[in-house]
């Protein structure tokens, strides 16, 4: 028997009862398409979170005062409540090998009033020019403030696009005056939108020189955050450890239990990726249950077919078919059924994830590996669930089969 003969037999058997074949295939189609769609949605969510975190600045270590309590996550860090980070910590961090940029930050929320009379309540961050480099900030118009303006306590402000929109609408904004906490600031730059990602919205923020923030607006001399950008991704761990030992020595605290915490973007990314992975696996396992049910449907149909075609099996054996020929014929019917279902399922799953992308819910991504997996799984299901019925068919005695009514 050639492969062509087997294909021909399979086609003729499956097309003889199209409705039944279609319904049986439906189980596999639904199973495969939902697995593909679920995995693509998971991958899409992962990619979108990854890119939004990377857009906040990659290779970034964020040092915050206080202690991140194990098990309670970064939200309960008590950030800002402790006052342990000081201006000269920045110089100490700069001396570590591998550190590219260091940007100290102090943030507060203030009421902001524009000359037009519009007002808003936003986060104001006092920082240095390096902040722009570290956080990948691009300017829509104007410029960021300079080192000189930080030293001279210049009353200048760079606005995030949301704040600018709230205060001025579409009107000209550069050179206008705004009042932050009742003090006048000149607008010198507007940032491009970065979109909200993570825990703060950089678009709804105003940036002023650090000195101005500490001495004039807040009246304090500590920092709420120090961002450290590392030149080489491979040096992240090394820099992190060094920063812990330098700062704890400087603060005279035990480095096992420091009065600050260092969070890297990789930590946040890792945690989120893990959550999404878990979720994707969860969804995909639910989808695989329908795949399993589809496989049982195939076995059911194959068993019915074997019974219905008992006389045919007898006839085939009488004219010289061996066990192997019969086995191969029924097994290939089951595999053809699942593979055809697999192809349609992949297309349908692709369609679903395309639909989700075009509806703008999540930017999904169908990976080649999930398609290959789906094919592998459907062929395996065909073999596994076709094995028993095919074995039963091949073991039929020709005499019994011919006598069967």
């Amino acid at each position, binding site marked *: *028997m050639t492969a*062509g*003969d087997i294909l021909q037999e399979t086609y003729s058997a499956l097309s003889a009862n199209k409705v039944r074949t279609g319904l049986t295939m439906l189980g596999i189609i639904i199973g495969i398409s939902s697995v593909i769609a679920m995995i693509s949605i998971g991958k899409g969510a992962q990619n979108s979170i990854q890119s939004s975190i990377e857009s906040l600045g990659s290779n970034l270590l964020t040092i915050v005062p206080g202690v991140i309590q194990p098990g309670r996550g970064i939200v309960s860090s008590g950030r800002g409540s402790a006052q342990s980070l000081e201006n000269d910590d920045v110089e100490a961090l700069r001396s570590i090998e591998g550190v590219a940029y260091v940007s100290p930050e102090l943030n507060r929320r203030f009421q902001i009033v524009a000359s037009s009379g519009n007002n808003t309540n936003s986060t104001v961050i006092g920082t240095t020019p390096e902040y722009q480099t570290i956080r990948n900030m691009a300017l829509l118009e104007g410029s960021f403030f300079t080192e000189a303006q930080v030293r001279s306590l210049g009353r200048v402000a760079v606005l995030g696009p949301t704040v600018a929109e709230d205060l001025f609408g579409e009107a000209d904004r550069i050179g206008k005056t705004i009042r932050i906490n009742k003090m006048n600031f000149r607008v010198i730059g507007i940032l491009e939108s970065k979109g909200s990602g993570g825990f703060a919205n950089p678009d709804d923020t105003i940036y002023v020189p650090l000195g101005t923030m500490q001495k004039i607006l807040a009246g304090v001399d500590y920092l709420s955050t120090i961002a450290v950008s590392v030149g080489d991704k491979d040096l992240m761990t090394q820099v992190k450890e060094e920063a812990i030992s330098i700062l704890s020595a400087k603060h005279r605290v035990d480095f096992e239990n420091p009065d600050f915490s260092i969070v890297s973007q990789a930590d946040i990314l890792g945690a989120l990726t893990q959550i999404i992975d878990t979720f994707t696996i969860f969804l995909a396992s639910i989808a695989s249950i329908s795949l399993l049910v589809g496989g049982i449907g195939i076995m059911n149909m194959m068993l019915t077919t074997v019974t219905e075609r008992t006389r045919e099996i007898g*006839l085939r*054996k*009488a*004219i*010289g078919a*061996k066990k192997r020929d019969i086995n191969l014929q029924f097994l290939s019917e089951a595999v053809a059924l699942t593979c055809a279902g697999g192809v349609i399922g992949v297309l349908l799953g692709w369609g679903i994830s395309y639909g989700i992308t075009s509806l703008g819910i999540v930017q999904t991504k169908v990976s080649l590996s999930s398609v290959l997996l789906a094919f592998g799984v459907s062929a395996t299901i065909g073999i596994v669930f076709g094995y028993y019925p095919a074995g039963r068919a091949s073991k039929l005695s020709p*005499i019994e089969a011919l006598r069967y009514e």
Partner: protein
Amino acid sequence: MIEIQDVQKTYKTGDVEFQALRGVSFTIQDGEFVAIMGPSGSGKSTLMHILGALDTPTSGTYYLDGKDVGALSDDELAEIRKNNIGFIFQSFNLLPRATVLRNVMLPLVYADVPPEERKERAEIALKAAGLDEEHFFHRSNQLSGGQVQRVAIARALVNNPTLILADEPTGNLDTKTGEIVLGTFQKLHREKRTIILITHEREVAEHAERIIFLRDGLLEEDRKHHKQKII
């Protein structure tokens, strides 16, 4: 040449034993047209299964062309059926889904005959069985009972078997169509084919040149039938 010697067949159902054949011996030469007759329960179906290599005897020997068929495995029996025997059954002879040509080619498929050769051989067999070319691409539900049996005869011929084994081939046909089918057997007989016809009807058996009577699992009579009914 077919030689069976003291063939016995016992079926066991639980503790109950049933002896279908109690020791049958005969020899059939190449080119003979033999009818095996007997009432139901005489053991003729069991004998047909053994002659057709569908089953093996409990004891005794069966030589087909000098080969001992009595003690072969399932797959070896399939090999014998494929190469040496052509079957014609009473009913359900053809695959309903396949065309006439495909049905006749089926034994060649299992015999690993190259696809190019199959069609030609199937057409030759169909013509030998007397089926008109216009039916070659019909399905079996578009054929009459007589035409179905001719296709079955063609399928039995296509592998050039040693033995053509027909089990009640006219059982489902009216007398006139039955005559035509039996006429086809006689034509094949004149072409020196070996044919064994299993039937319970004397009318049918009289078309053969030799009749073997079975009764209660024993050979009752084995005679040449000189007044063969020629069609």
